[in-house]
């Protein structure tokens, strides 16, 4: 089947659809930036976008190599600090949605951005937390965006950098944490979490993808409801905004 959008564009649009007007959203660079800028330019004009190092509502005209690139701070409402954004906004409880990505995620939405291998044996150290653990711990809900690959959707991950539902059931609230992941968006499907067991649960499959393809390329079995709808495809206007306005050089979309 031929589509007039790419899997990355569908992921960004699916991310944007999760965001509501007036919400406060903490984002890192890459697909989450595209998703949140897209939401703000369409159905959520009053959304507040935060970057952890101290940036509120930037309006970049050039794409940046990361949060440390002044290109992504351009025309912000506020330039401040970690204590301001991660402390007085996030830790205070005012962030509605946090976007997270990672090297690995398990069936309870726990994320690893720290290392691959054996933490007490041989391993490769990668990036670590940054503000990810803080966002996973303090946001009212989080949305996880990652590629749908067996090595990334794992039964057991090497290291929990950012907690999801920890060991499932009520283990997250017992650890003293509210919130938790509400969605996992991959290039094949969208997952939610089972209301009691907190296991990942298939919510929709992207057009052109089969259930076998979804289940055959992940390291654990998600809960599969009887009826699984297809993910709504992006609109022409959403694709136009991504390609012409938000990421014209395809810097974030790859």
């Amino acid at each position, binding site marked *: 089947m031929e589509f007039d959008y790419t899997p990355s564009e569908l992921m960004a649009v699916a991310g944007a659809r999760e965001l509501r007007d007036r919400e406060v959203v903490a984002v890192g*660079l890459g697909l989450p930036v595209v998703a949140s800028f897209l939401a703000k330019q369409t159905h959520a004009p009053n959304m507040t976008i935060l970057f*952890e*190092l*101290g*940036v509120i509502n930037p309006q970049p005209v*050039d794409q*940046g*190599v*990361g*949060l*440390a*690139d*002044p*290109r992504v*701070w*351009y025309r912000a409402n506020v*330039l*401040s*600090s*970690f*204590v301001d954004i*991660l*402390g007085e906004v*996030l*830790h205070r409880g005012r962030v509605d949605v946090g976007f997270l990505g990672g090297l690995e995620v398990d069936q309870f939405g726990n994320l690893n*951005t*720290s290392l691959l291998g054996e*933490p007490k044996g041989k*391993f*490769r*150290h*990668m*990036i*670590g*937390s*940054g*503000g*990810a*653990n*803080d966002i996973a*711990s*303090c946001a009212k809900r989080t949305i996880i965006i990652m590629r749908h690959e067996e090595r990334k959707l794992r039964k057991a991950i090497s*290291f*929990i*950098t*950012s*907690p999801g539902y*920890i060991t499932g059931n009520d*283990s*997250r609230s017992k*650890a*003293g*944490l509210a919130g938790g992941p509400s969605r996992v968006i991959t290039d094949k499907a969208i997952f939610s979490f089972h209301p009691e067991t907190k296991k990942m649960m298939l919510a929709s499959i992207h057009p052109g993808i089969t259930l076998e393809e979804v289940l055959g390329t992940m390291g654990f079995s998600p809960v599969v409801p009887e009826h699984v709808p297809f993910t709504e495809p992006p609109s022409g206007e959403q694709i136009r905004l991504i390609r012409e306005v938000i990421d014209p050089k395809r810097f974030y979309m790859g």
Partner: protein
Amino acid sequence: MTKISTLSDAVASIPSGAHLALSGFAITRCTMAFSREVIRQGIKNLTISQCVGAMDADMLVGAGAVKRLIYGGGSLDRFGRLNCVNRGIEDGSLVADEYSSLSVAFRYLAGALGVPFMPIRSLRGSDLMVQLKERSVSDLANITDPFTGEDWPVLKPLLPDVAVVQVQFSDEEGNACIIGPRWDNNEQVRASQRTIVIAEHVVTCETICQTPEQTTIPGLFVSHVVELPFAAHPTSVYRSYDYDAEHIQVYVEATRTPESFQLFLDKYVYGVKDHWEYLELVGGLQHLSSLKADPVMGY
């Protein structure tokens, strides 16, 4: 009182074994000229802290000047990972206390306020917490909230010996302005015993007093003011100059092995006598002018 100093005198005030808080964030406002001079002077066994690991710390680790790193993870953004830091963690030569960024910021804030500890919601249920608690001397504990009875992780204050902060401008007493986001720099300064300000430009006290609401570092915290243009090269200084993408790539390539990084140090650190020779080596005024920021865009 003037605190104007040469880079070499400011660095010479730091004893081996000191704890330094560095102002870099990934590839912006990193204390690069300072780090190169620390390496040239052979200062060792440092403890380095910052909320997000940056190129200034990575270079010091790669040169063998660091014993312990207290940080919240980090990278060189799209240019790559902190290869020296990662290698040190993997082979056990670097003691790394790995937190989330807000945890390190809260440790500085506790230090800055002079409170005995800081409660935090983060870290719960994570392997970061498990790992930190396994340390022989843990800087993390749990406490019962006396008002609600809830259990809270608490962090020990960070009290660095010296904060080293790259700023756009300062007066000679160290009343300094950071333009743009400040990430953890305000808390680093206030938690530390004293601060070394590295300023792109030293201005008169009269200039500072025209807009004192823009002063981010009061001179009372500052021991040395070093005026040095392009001191953060190859990283950026907002509204002053952009990062030098080509040179950052040279750095990333060089850090892939200890041998190639030694060659890099031989050329760009040991091979020059000071910052001025370094600036000539990386392209001189002609190349550096091409990095100058547009005043409106800031990069």
